[in-house]
């Protein structure tokens, strides 16, 4: 048994060879933060160019590469790995398991990622530039008219897909097989539940994405015509395949966020989560519905009226389980003894702002109105409202909630509140005016715009720079917390519940080698 109690290996090779879920969780989180800064830097280029009408800083070709790479890096490099990192750290500790079910594969699924993104980013320096067709890489833009580097983009997506699928299999195997005795499925924390559902979504749709890029590869190099009308194919098929992946993908990026918020709100409201069972069923319903709404991204390509109507109502139906969740969070806070520590600030902001994003989503789901909104900044405003104060605020909330557990130190609470308020204000300044310019008809993915949009774009850019710079403060807060800080107790939040708070802070290298008893 002694081998179960040794500490981490020394030196850099610890990180290369590690199979420890906490080490791998940290690697994922640091990697995703690096990608967050890189994708953010690209967003800064976009906002700098859009600060004024006309072309100032970059050429349209490079602007297109920036919008494409910003989207790809934020989706696949920042948000998804951050959730996998949190899953690695927290799922074993939340269910009383000693580690993930497949520790070696865990190491592999992480270490594929730096290579995938090195390959993806290297395309920017290739002849013809990097991907410039938007993160949705519609054919034939990405097949017939894509730059020569598209092949490298395809392989990078393959590698990300393999990494995600392996990570998802690991999560499923861990949750289904390594729970402590007495931890029934309906006693699992919601973060574990949401990740279980997310993992199923991942193994269902990442292969579909792999299939889509494989068809592109074959069309480009092997003379097939999946998406080429000249050879009997159909470019619209690409959109169907892509969005069959793409819509579940957006829930992959939000369901774990629901789980985090469902852990934090009860802790700081000092009340148990309202409607646990309905939360579980809501997550499962959202996951199911995500497979039958994909064509709402394609209302304008020409689908039959029955199709438009079906996808419109199916999409609106998602508001029901989502509304249940928002209701439950509000009901949990209702008459609670609320305190507003940093994780709670981010969680409350999540509930309010994610709901705004949900409402603009409902507006977009109305098929006849979508013909006006399609491909405008209104869409950009919508998905940034669900991703930035949705996914990313939830990740911040989770980090601030569990950081004392990871590092054994309490972070600088004053600075963390500055981080929250700057992010909150910056984010709203950036994305709220986009609703207005979008409704007035400003198209997305264009480096120049009409004079009438100038003021709102300048406000967006100022907000964007503010949000961007603030994230360096987050880096500082985390580094400071890792190095120094007041000693954190095993349970630093008095209202918190769960097995993760039963182990000391910082969490020992090996936890729950003997499973705890769950009553």
């Amino acid at each position, binding site marked *: 048994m002694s081998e179960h109690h040794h500490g981490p290996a020394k030196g850099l090779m610890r990180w290369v060879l590690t199979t420890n879920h906490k080490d791998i969780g940290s690697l994922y989180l640091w990697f995703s933060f690096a990608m967050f800064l890189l994708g953010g830097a690209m967003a800064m280029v976009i906002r700098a160019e859009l600060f004024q009408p006309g072309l100032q800083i970059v050429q349209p070709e490079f602007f297109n590469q920036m919008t494409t790479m910003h989207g790809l890096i934020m989706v696949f490099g920042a948000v998804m790995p951050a959730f996998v990192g949190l899953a690695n750290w927290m799922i074993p500790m939340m269910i009383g398991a000693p580690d993930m079910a497949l520790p070696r594969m865990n190491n592999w699924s992480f270490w594929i990622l730096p290579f995938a993104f090195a390959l993806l980013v290297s395309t920017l320096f290739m002849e013809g530039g990097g991907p410039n067709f938007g993160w949705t890489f519609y054919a034939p833009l990405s097949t017939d008219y894509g730059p020569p580097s598209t092949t490298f983009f395809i392989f990078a997506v393959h590698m990300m897909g393999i990494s995600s699928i392996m990570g998802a299999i690991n999560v499923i195997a861990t949750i289904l097989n390594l729970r402590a005795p007495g931890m029934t499925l309906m006693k699992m924390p919601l973060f574990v539940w949401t990740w279980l559902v997310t993992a199923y979504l991942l193994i269902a749709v990442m*292969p579909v994405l792999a299939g889509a890029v494989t068809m592109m590869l074959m069309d480009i190099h092997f003379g097939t015509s999946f998406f080429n009308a000249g050879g009997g194919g159909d470019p619209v098929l690409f959109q169907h395949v892509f969005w069959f992946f793409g819509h579940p993908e957006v829930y992959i990026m939000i369901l774990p966020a629901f789980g985090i918020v469902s852990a934090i709100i009860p802790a700081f409201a000092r009340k148990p989560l309202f409607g646990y069972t309905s939360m579980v069923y809501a997550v499962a319903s959202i996951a199911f519905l995500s497979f039958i709404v994909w064509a709402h991204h394609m209302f304008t390509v020409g689908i039959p009226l029955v199709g438009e109507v079906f996808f419109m109502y199916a999409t609106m139906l998602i508001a029901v389980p989502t509304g249940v969740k928002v209701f439950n969070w509000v009901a949990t806070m209702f008459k609670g003894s609320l305190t507003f520590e940093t994780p709670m600030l981010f969680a409350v902001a999540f509930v309010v702002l994610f709901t705004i994003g949900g409402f603009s989503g409902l507006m977009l789901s109305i098929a006849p109105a979508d013909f006006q909104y399609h491909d405008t900044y209104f869409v950009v405003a919508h998905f940034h409202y669900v991703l930035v104060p949705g996914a990313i605020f939830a990740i911040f909330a989770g980090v601030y909630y569990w950081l004392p557990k990871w590092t054994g130190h309490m972070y600088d609470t004053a600075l963390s509140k500055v981080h929250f308020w700057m992010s909150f204000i910056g984010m709203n300044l950036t994305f709220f005016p986009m609703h207005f310019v979008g409704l007035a008809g400003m198209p997305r993915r264009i480096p120049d715009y009409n004079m009438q949009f100038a003021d709102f774009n300048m406000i967006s850019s100022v907000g964007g720079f503010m949000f961007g710079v603030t994230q360096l403060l987050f880096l500082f807060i985390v580094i400071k917390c890792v190095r120094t800080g007041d000693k954190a107790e095993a349970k630093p939040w008095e209202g918190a519940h769960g097995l993760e708070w039963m182990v000391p802070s910082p969490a020992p290298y090996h936890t729950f080698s003997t499973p705890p008893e769950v009553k």
Partner: protein
Amino acid sequence: MKLNPAQKTIVKAAITAVAMFAFVFWVMVPLYNVLCKVTGLNGKTDPEPYTSVPAAVDESRLITVQFLATNNKGMNWDFKPSVHQVKIHPGEIGSLSFYVRNPSDKDMVGQAIPSVSPFEATDFLHKTECFCFTSQPLEARGEKTMPLKIIVDQDLPKHIKKLTLSYTLFDITALDKRNGNKKRTAGL
């Protein structure tokens, strides 16, 4: 070999992932093509010649059929219909032709892809003869007239009075070389 419960979970999950990859190629693509064929989605017409069935010409109404010729990006042939529209009774054969000229000094192969609008009329516009059924080779500086014969079905919904048949001409010289002049119906 006896698998423990964790291994069973892993095998099931891995099989699901592989099955979903196969699903894209062997279910989604054929299903999409079948759906397009059944519903006439995207105005995709039948890639085979239509054998006309004897039926009375419906002289009670006159349908306008318009013709469009478009070049796909990178295609440099001159491409135009002999007439821009015909007025025919359902069941009656409309004949016309499309003219193409290859102004370049290299031999090329073109493929015209038809599309019907509105797409609910797709299944009611038949072609008994069309240059779009096969690829069209054309030598350098060559030109030709390609015949087209159409019939509007007698069952065309009453509210449709005007149809548009548009052709997009693709340069498939490179594709054609690589595939050894095989008939190009992949995916149709």
